[in-house]
């Protein structure tokens, strides 16, 4: 039976679910674009000894919806930073957009992210390495149910140049005391992720092996 607490991130409230209790460092799950946190602890986390947490990103699940959109992956990174501020160091598994955000936060807070696993899921590709064809659309004001249509629109079009991704890899490698703070488990490899996976010191492992690696730290 999971429990939910609300965290404050700027002017928004975020839903953080505890899928299972445990001692030690939490495993934090980040869902894909348009998804919500799982209701129960996924089977592939079974070897994790500590608590298993799952965050609903802004505009998703039970988290708040911002008025008028304006989403960027970097703002979802701040969502994760709010969890790190509240819970301390975590290991992260990110699916899809959660993988991209997981990479960003691993570079931004290398001392607090004790390993990140980048996994397949919705929103893994984003808008590609170059700006996609321009598209501007105003959606009517409404009390949007989640997922917020603006989240779906904006977070599927953000540009992800490989060299930008590699900056965050280097921040993570320079700032972490782990030898291999980043593991790629995704089978899909958009340009940014292929570049990350090609980096020396980034491991390429199946999801369960990646979690076992970080569980053993």
């Amino acid at each position, binding site marked *: 039976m999971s429990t939910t607490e609300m965290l404050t991130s700027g002017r928004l409230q975020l839903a953080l679910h505890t899928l299972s209790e445990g001692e030690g460092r939490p495993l934090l799950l980040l869902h894909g674009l348009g998804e919500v946190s799982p209701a129960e602890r996924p089977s592939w986390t079974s070897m994790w000894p500590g608590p298993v947490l799952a965050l609903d990103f802004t505009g998703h699940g039970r988290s708040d919806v*911002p008025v*008028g959109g*304006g989403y960027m992956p970097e703002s979802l990174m701040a969502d994760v930073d709010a969890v790190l501020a509240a819970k301390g160091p975590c290991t992260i598994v990110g699916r899809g957009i959660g993988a991209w955000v997981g990479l960003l936060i691993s570079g931004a807070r290398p001392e607090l992210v004790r390993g990140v696993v980048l996994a397949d899921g919705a929103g893994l590709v984003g808008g590609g390495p170059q700006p996609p064809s321009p598209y501007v*659309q*105003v959606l009517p004001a409404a009390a949007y149910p989640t997922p917020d249509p603006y989240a779906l629109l904006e977070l599927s079009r953000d540009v992800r*140049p490989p060299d930008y991704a590699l900056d965050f890899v280097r921040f993570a490698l320079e700032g972490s005391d782990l030898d291999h703070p980043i593991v790629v488990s995704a089978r899909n490899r958009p340009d940014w992720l292929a570049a990350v996976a090609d980096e020396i010191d980034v491991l390429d492992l199946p999801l369960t092996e990646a979690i076992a690696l970080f569980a053993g730290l």
Partner: protein
Amino acid sequence: MQGDQTRDHPGARPPDRTGRVDSSGLSLAVNEWGEPDAPMLCLVHGGFDFSRTFDVFAPMLADGGWRVVAWDARGHGDSDHAHYYSWAADVRDHLAAITQLADGPVPVIGHSKGGGQMLDLLDARPSIATAFVNLDGLPSHFSAPDINDRERRRMRRDDLTSTLDRRRRRNELSRRPDTIEGLAGRRAPMNPRLSREWLEYLVTVGARLDDDGWRWKIDPVLHLGGFGPWRPNWSMEHLANLDLPFLGVLSGVVDDPMGWKSRPGDIAPFLPPDGRVEFFDDIGHFLHIEQPRLIADMVLEFLEPLR
């Protein structure tokens, strides 16, 4: 707070009308100058500015026979503060404003960031405009191109950390109160070529007077800088795609702290067929404030065939 809390500035004229438009639930403040039945044109301000910074320039255009409409970007001036700020959200707000305020396509004038954002919008929605004037809002390269990749990465790392730290303190942030003179002095490093008299006037139209002093209305979470994958040369791709009368006006003052420092040679390869660029090496980034008569006359002449 003692003393005179008003300021005048030669040629400055408050808007003839004010209003609001909605952008997906956010309320944006609108200011208008000129006769309500005159042909309309839009003015789009830059970052950390607000529509009342057009208080001299807009009346000149209005006196030239236009209904001049400008709005405050989200978080700026009298518009709502937002949960999120982004380039794409600003672009969308501009579209919402133009489509609500105009009956059809209109000329658009954008300064600085507002000009850069209009490049994006007009590439996506070319049917909303009849002409585009861009006032020193043509990003073509990073304004400090001599920084090497290692240094740029270090700066990005620093920006990243400070932005997240700032975000954690977001609910504690507020603008510092001050006197009119104090606020003007704090803005001066961003506007070193503009007179103190003008900056003090700006305080009286862009700040609010609280019990403990004047505060800029701009959302305290907004700050210069930041990080992200954006590249200035992407804007040049939008410029090349335009198919409407285009006038770009560039400042060539290299020690002005604001602006992208693009030169005519950076822009020329991407100019649309009907495009033209004017370059002034003796006018700073805020061309329309520093030399309002010169710029207004140039714009009026450029737009005259459309009236």
